[in-house]
């Protein structure tokens, strides 16, 4: 019999209460309990970045965070960027620069990029590359992703 716990947190600007298994990670809660599937499972051990979300404004791998640890926090997923003009610019840049192919890494990549842009840590392309080092992409070879982020952050080579 697994242990359950009630938590309350802000998800994409909306307060909500959820009952979660104490062993569950935030990724499974978002996808399977709440039904927001934009956050992707890629590896389940914090190596690929496909499940990147933002918690209290900081990006992290939701597969490595216990769902119960969302209690009292402010959580943003890719769906939460829908009504955000800064994020719109980033999303448009990914589309226009050809940074999306199969698209499976894209939500995580955008969550990470959004964090980088907002925290001002992409002044040049090298820092963008370092900033997305934890996000794997098998299709694009990263170049167009870096170009897309640079176009929004105004990074120079």
């Amino acid at each position, binding site marked *: 019999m697994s242990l359950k716990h009630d938590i309350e947190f802000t998800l994409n600007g909306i307060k909500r209460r959820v009952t979660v298994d104490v062993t569950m990670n935030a990724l499974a809660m978002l996808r399977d309990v709440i039904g927001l*599937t934009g956050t992707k499972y890629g590896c389940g051990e914090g190596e690929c970045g496909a499940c990147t979300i933002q918690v209290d404004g900081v990006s992290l791998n939701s597969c490595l965070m216990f769902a119960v640890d969302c209690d009292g926090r402010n959580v943003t997923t890719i769906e939460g960027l829908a009504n955000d003009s800064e994020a719109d610019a980033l999303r448009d840049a990914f*589309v226009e620069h050809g940074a999306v*192919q199969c*698209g499976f*890494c894209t*939500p995580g990549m955008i969550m990470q990029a959004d964090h980088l842009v907002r925290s001002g840590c992409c002044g040049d392309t090298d820092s963008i590359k370092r900033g997305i080092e934890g996000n794997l992409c098998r299709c*694009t*070879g*990263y170049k167009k992703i870096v170009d897309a982020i640079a176009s929004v952050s105004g990074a120079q080579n």
Partner: protein
Amino acid sequence: MSVAEKKARVIQPDSLIGKRIPKMDAPEKASGKTRYIHDINLSGQLHGKILRSERIHALIKSIDTSAAKALPGVHVVITAADVPDQRPIGVARDHFPLKVGRVRSERDEIAAVAAETEEIAEAALKLIKVVYEDLPVISNPEDAIKPGAALIHPEPHGADGSHEHLKQGTTIAHKGKPDNVAMTFDYAHGDVVRGEAESDVVLEDTFKLHYVTHCCMGVSGMIAEFDASGNLLMYSNTQVPFLHKREFAEYLNMDPARIRIIQPPIGGGFGSKLDIYPFEVICLYLARAAKRPVKMLFTREEEFLASPTRQPVLLTLRSGCKKDGTLTFRQVHTLHDNGAYTSWGATTPFVMMQTFSSLYRVPHCDYHTAAVYTNNPYAGSFRGYGNLQATFAIEQHMDMLAEKIGMDPLAFRLKNAQDAGETTGQGMSFKSCGFKDCLTTAATRSDYSRKVQENVANRDKPGNIKRGVGMASMLHVGGGAKIYPSDGCGTILKMDDFANVTLITGASEIGQGSETVLSQLVCEELGLPMSAITVVNNDTAITPWDVGVHASRTTFIAGNSAIGAAKKAKTKILAVAAKKYDCAESDLDLRGGFVIKAGSGEVVVELSKLLRNLHFQDKAELVMTTFYYEPPSVHQDKGFKGDVSAAYAWGTQVVEVEVDTDTGTVRMTKVTGAHDVGRVLNRLGIEGQIEGGVVMGQGYALTEDLMIENGVMKNPNFRDYKLVTAPEIPEMDISFIESMDGEGPQGAKGVGEAPSICIAAATANAIANATGVRMFELPFTPERVYRTLHGQTPKLYWKPWKAE
């Protein structure tokens, strides 16, 4: 706007071809709204999980599923004994989805569970008890072909799948094998003995290519459901839905007409979804037994263990040339590690022998492959399909031969490079060929020849960082490949009352951007903006037949098919307009959503208005067309000769590296590529294909290594299997050679596989240029490079298994 004003309006000529067109599904994907198979759930759905072998090679003495069946929430537990109609699957039909009596590799499927939740299914797997009796493990293909080696497939596999299959009268589906040889390939043109006699220089070297795997970011999955009438609906990640429809029908002993495959967007393909794997058939068995929809998803660890790999190859190449730089012969023996079962990996010689016989002009060529069973993971198809392995050997020998005769390596290649109009010893006919342009463009833009000299001169100077530059080129099919009875693709095109067009294509989209490029081709014909098109491409109940995504064929084959359907629609529209406006069809054209006068561009009528008039008249009609395109290629004969593709793609890549001689670390600093793509259709899309392929090639060369020890995979995770990350990517300078292929859609040829093919070969040449030391084995990890630089790597030598 009045009618008079409209008529006065002139639409300027414009073209979508060569533009940077964003991928049509990118906004959905970038918003997290795209529903991949992982994101789809059906009501009443159960979750399937597979119990895999705890041993590498063993007899299964008993399986006890009673405790698992008793677990609350478990609906179905199956083993081979529960599926008496199991049939062997795979390219050689040597493989039961649920293993019968014997396991042959770490990934082998023993039992499967369908339960209310994934957690319950996993808990049930832990309750299944299996008793094994170990057998000797063969993990080295060289051992597998030694006399007296333990056999991997000694017993016949019955078509009914049960132990009873050995009894008299049972249909035998797979006879078993008296040795461990799964497949052999033998090809020849000319006379290599004569070729060798004419040679001034002869080289012989052994090359060793390793295991890597696709690492699609989206793990494998399937959802299967039988309806009340017994019809099967699958949500599948397949790249070849129409071939699989037929094959699944065979495995389930059902009518293919009753199988429907829906393909949700997939999280990467790269060739991995070209064969049917045991999990897919097992998912169907579970759904059939449970009478409920069953969803099965891999974990990342399972994805490593149980999805296909690139084919590991041991290869000995003997080649020669004359002093004047003329190539004389090539003799090749390869030993392919087939793994425990046969998938497409065993058939990579189809592509490899083309590279040996036809990349350069070689008058005499002799090629032999044996793909042998081991207890290792089994190899499938992977972008490039054997060409990375073949090119790795050939292009190193090109440098080495050039050095032996004291010729510039670029000049040596140019002297032997193919030209348009040539037909090779293997019967491949090059109607368009930009190979020499690729060579000179990549060399010029990278300043190759100067850097080669400069790096050699700098080798002995002080400092631990040595710079190197290396070149390699490739030939690959670029106009489909006639492997199946048809290499065609069908298109249905319909136009609505508002001049929007729906393109219904057989071509699958796996992230490569086919939906966008096909839309461009249709809109170009019909003079419509990209916003006027919708693509339907993922449901076998709707889309016309296509052979599938393989052989870099989609743009060429599906593109020609889409153009064919669009041209028919255009002809019909212009005929209607010509009649209505009392002029010749040739006086009219379509542009910008209007029917215009061909010469002046003056607007005649809005296309949507014309279509509505056609629709809402007494003799009402809609504009709907179909087209099936079959390329003018031929099947190879029994000697593997024939013009198997309607066009061939060429490319040259120059790789620059920095080698740290103190640590063995190789940093790839720049890749300069020149690709003969026929014509650029979508510049944004083709750049993305090339860049992604280059970095995939970089991983193959430097970082990726699926480590198998005694049949056990040591690194089934992203922590220890190193994909290239963003900070490691090289600077990329990509040029396109537009040879305007006469048969290609708007002149284009295939490019999907091309960019990953040359990188490892060019990197080997770059390391040799930097250090004077040749690397014959991949990957170029710091350990291997350090050891080789310090003389600690024994020279590879493999004597071909087959008697000369």
